[in-house]
């Protein structure tokens, strides 16, 4: 059957793509737009590797029919990076804290963490656990990930204080 044109604002840029009937947002990002940081871990919404921000909220992009979000804003890890290519506090904390090993869960976890920190710059450990509970990680045992998110949150708060003073 016919593809349909869908428009999205992806990482701040207007993009358009041809969506096959029933194509997921995940498939559209990866196969039509070359945005490959969200991963296809299960395609049924159980692993969280496809997590992106849709109009600011973390969602499982494999479960979103892209035709239903025409005109929406999507943010992926590609858009969470700095223009000059330097790593954000979250990425830096993941690298330094060895919170990423194979890296497959990492984009999804970072997007979930970005959503948490946007809503709450000073989360508790429990808050972080809840925020990343949709992501399955087979490598790290999660502790390093939780520590890295808390570490990054602290760095961001420090940077804000420096900028403010």
């Amino acid at each position, binding site marked *: 059957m016919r593809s349909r044109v869908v428009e999205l604002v992806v990482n701040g840029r207007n993009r358009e793509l041809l969506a096959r009937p029933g194509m*997921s947002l995940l498939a559209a990002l990866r196969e039509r737009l070359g945005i490959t940081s969200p991963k296809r871990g299960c395609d049924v*919404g159980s692993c969280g590797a496809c997590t992106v921000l849709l109009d600011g909220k973390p969602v499982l992009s494999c*479960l979103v*029919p892209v035709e239903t979000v025409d005109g929406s804003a999507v943010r992926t890890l590609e858009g969470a990076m700095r223009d000059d290519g330097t790593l954000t506090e979250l990425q830096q904390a993941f690298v330094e804290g060895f919170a990423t090993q194979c890296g497959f869960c990492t984009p999804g976890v970072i997007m979930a963490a970005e959503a948490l920190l946007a809503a709450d710059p000073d989360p508790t450990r429990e808050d972080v656990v809840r925020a990343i509970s949709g992501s399955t990680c087979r490598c790290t045992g999660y502790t390093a990930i939780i520590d890295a998110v808390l570490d990054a949150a602290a760095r961001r708060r420090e940077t804000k204080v420096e900028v403010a003073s």
Partner: protein
Amino acid sequence: MLETVHVPESVDEAVSALRGNAVVAGGGTIVMGLVNTTPVPFTDLVSLRRAGLSGIRVEGGTAIVGATTTIEEIGADERLAFLSPVVDVFASPPLRNLATIGGNLFVPQPGGDLAVCLLALGADVVIAGPDGVRTADVAEVLDEGIRTGEIVTEVRFPVPAEGTWFYRKAMRRRFGSATIVSIAAVVVVERGVVSSARIALGGAGSRPVRSRTAEFALAGKPLDRASVAAAATAALADSTTFDDAYASAWYRARVLPVHFRRALLGE
């Protein structure tokens, strides 16, 4: 094979789109998994995401929740604070930002955590179809579904008084786990004894179970350990537990009375 995805912008458009071989998606959390991985037997998918069915009102103690209101939106609403512990252990944030209260009525057990709650709350379900609008008891919708060509537009339930709502979900992990067994109950105690009880069980049958046997066991009794333990055992009489990847039927039946007791005694 899926040929067309419809994104109606009103209830009327949605009902019109439901002709022939069409399936409805609220948040798509069940249907899209099938679309992604299997050759689905339906040709048309009708998404309700933009049909204007989202929103929460509370009027005179009754919550009126649009069918496509997400689970996360429900958990964040202070007027429905009694449901925050339910939402807190419902899947995870990126799933909750898609899953809808209307869709949850049709999720097979052991999913359908909100559906179990709605059964305990004695909710009404508003349904639109080609013949107009009707209201049905949630128990009927859970047991029989809705008719071809219809969609759920709204769910309504009384907000329980402070201290009358009880909920517990037994899980494999603290977060992000489906239900082994769950207990949702509205129990009113007057003059020291139970004057009314509505008790619903999850993971205790192919659909959410209303445990009238447990309710009868509690009626007129104080809400203490002895009566609750007796009611917990009675709840088994209404249960037909099942095997799945989370737990065996034997295990579910073994732990149901334990979690029932903990739910009602706040242990």
